[in-house]
């Protein structure tokens, strides 16, 4: 089957005239529907016999399959089918719902995935644990489309290991009818009037960042006294909470089981779709920003195809299509012209510059992470 595949390739190459790289060929082939059909069919016939991809030196072959492990509800409906048609490969798409799940899966041995989408600080962790590998940027010319701040992000300057997927902020989702006196301040999550209607996320560092911002401290502090102070502040808040959860607050905001939720921007927008009273704000004390980025795990079976996919995602139209569907901001500057104006002009998604200045990334703190872990356990056990 593979031999036949190669013969057809040679035939097609002749037909298109002139030698070219495999990727170039496929791109051109993508334009001609008939050829795509043929290559897609052949890929399907290839079955389990995966082509040996040697990504060394920038070249390589498109594999028959690509294993993509992404967050749930994080892609539009066209991006994968279009990629499959254009490149004649089959994308096997699996989902996870937290960085911790993703890390546990990678740590437990070869996962077999070609692309994973960890969050900024987790990239540092995975690098430290030697779980991801360097990307060949020669295969990703479209990386030039990204905003400069995502080309020089603190956790991966120069995109050596990661290509950003989508970014957003952490803030407060609130019900504008039930909370008429809302101000963009973390103080709202300590307002006794809304006791029992407030939820916090369950990510350790995210929870502490709220209290640290409220206290005016750095969310990446390594100072035990500041962390202790934050813990006391969170213990004070505990009687007012409905619960700590990062998975159910979308529904709760939508169903008015909670009025004030500490959460991720895009999640709150999902609640907005079901309940138009739900709004989102980034508190003025400052907040976290995050970016989920595509990485290639060590031992990924199809590195070259993964890089081709990353390049594909960096195309302005593709990046825009994802943002237009999932309501997170795109790291792709060139995509701006294809992004729906209501998204691009929405300060909840693309914050104003003065808000941007107050956003920080979470940093991996190595052994000092223990300080947060211990404090969080004490908070939850109390």
């Amino acid at each position, binding site marked *: 089957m593979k031999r036949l595949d190669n013969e057809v390739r040679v035939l097609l190459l002749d037909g298109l005239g002139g030698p070219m790289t495999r990727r170039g060929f496929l791109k051109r082939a993508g334009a001609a529907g008939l050829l795509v059909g043929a290559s897609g069919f052949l890929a399907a016939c290839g079955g389990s016999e995966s082509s040996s991809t040697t990504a060394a030196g920038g070249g390589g072959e498109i594999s028959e399959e690509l294993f993509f492990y992404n967050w749930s509800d994080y892609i539009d409906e066209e991006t994968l089918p279009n990629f499959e048609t254009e490149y004649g490969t089959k994308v096997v798409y699996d989902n996870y719902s*937290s960085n*911790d*799940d993703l*890390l*546990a899966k990678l*740590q437990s041995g070869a996962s077999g995935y070609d692309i994973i989408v960890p969050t900024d600080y987790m990239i540092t*962790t995975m690098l*430290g*644990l030697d779980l991801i590998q360097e990307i060949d940027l020669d295969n990703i010319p479209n990386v030039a489309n990204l905003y400069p701040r995502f080309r020089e992000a603190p956790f991966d300057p120069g995109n050596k290991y990661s290509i950003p997927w989508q970014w957003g902020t952490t803030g407060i989702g609130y019900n504008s009818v039930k909370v008429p006196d809302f101000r963009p301040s973390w103080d709202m999550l300590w307002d006794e009037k809304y006791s*029992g209607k407030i939820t916090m996320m*369950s*990510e*350790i560092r995210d929870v502490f960042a709220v209290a640290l911002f409220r206290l005016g401290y750095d969310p990446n502090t390594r100072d035990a006294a500041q962390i202790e102070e934050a813990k006391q502040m969170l213990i004070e808040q*505990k*009687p007012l*909470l*409905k*619960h*700590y*959860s990062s998975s*159910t607050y979308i*529904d*709760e905001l939508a*169903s*008015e*089981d909670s009025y004030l939720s500490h959460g991720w921007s895009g999640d709150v927008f999902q609640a907005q779709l079901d309940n138009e009273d739900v709004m989102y704000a980034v508190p003025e004390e400052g907040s976290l920003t995050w970016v989920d980025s595509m990485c290639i795990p060590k031992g990924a079976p199809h590195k070259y195809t993964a890089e081709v996919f990353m390049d594909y995602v960096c195309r302005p139209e593709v990046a825009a299509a994802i943002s237009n569907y999932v309501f997170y901001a795109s790291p792709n500057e060139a995509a701006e012209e294809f992004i729906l104006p209501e998204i691009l002009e929405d300060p909840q998604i693309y914050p104003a510059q003065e808000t941007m200045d107050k956003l920080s990334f979470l940093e*991996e703190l*190595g*052994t000092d*992470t*223990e300080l947060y*872990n211990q404090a*969080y*356990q*004490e908070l*939850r*056990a*109390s």
Partner: protein
Amino acid sequence: MSKTPANRGAEGGTSSAIFEKHGDPLSRAMARLRGHSFAVANLLMAPTMLWLVLFLMLPLGVILVYSFGSRGTYGDVILGFSFDNYLRAFNPTWLPVILRSFGFAALATVFTLVLGYPLAYFIAVYGGRRKNMYLIMVMLPFWTSYLIRTYSWIVILRSQGVINTVLQSMHIIDNPLDLLNTPFSVVLGLTYGFLPFMTLPLYSSLEKLDKSLIEASWDLGANRVWTLLRVTIPLSMPGVIAGTLLTFIPAVGDFVTPDLLGGPNTMMIGNLIQQQFLSARDWAYGSALSFSLMAILLLGIFFYVRKAGTENLA
């Protein structure tokens, strides 16, 4: 059941004949040492033993080794030999969590027993031709993911959920009751989730119960209540013990139910351990916590079974 000894005898005979024929001195010695049927029993046990060693003893061994290690810079496990994790595990901070876990599990066990006993009794005594159908109905929930079943409780209990909507529309209450994210919802979830674990062993012991003993009790002048208290319940104790153990032990370590149905003050030991393996990424500490919990449970079970009478478990 009555055929088993005969079968065992027959098999024992065959195998010993084989051993004699081959004249393997070791096998002969073993056979003489343990009795013929023992060799067959060992052979029959081999797959189970292999399974237990590969999938229970080995992982437990790994956890034991990890529990003496420490957390690396990025959350990896650094092997070593220190009791630090155990010292941290027996920390007064966790006392409320431990007490809560045992309290919730005990309540859930009592509730499953109170709900499960009449159910099992009904199926065993009055089930008749429909017995199998009733049993399938008890087991039916197992065919759906536990996660989905727990999520459906969220839909039932939340402030705009089934219960509150009905009560409000009937004007029984004005404001929705806080049912979800409370100790109540966690115990409810545990009770619901473990009910079949209680009902099935109760059923099997009530099913085997010799009905003539109940008739004898009536003949001798005991009324129905007295018969239940002095004959039926004591004779079904093996089922009660098995059911309570099958409910209590997993309930103590459960983390899904408090995670989904719980509130800010319902953290259980299972959540604490889960957090070490996921968000805190301190596998060494999580392993030590797991082993400590296991030790406490084993000790508890030991005394429980001893007090309840080991022979009853047969």
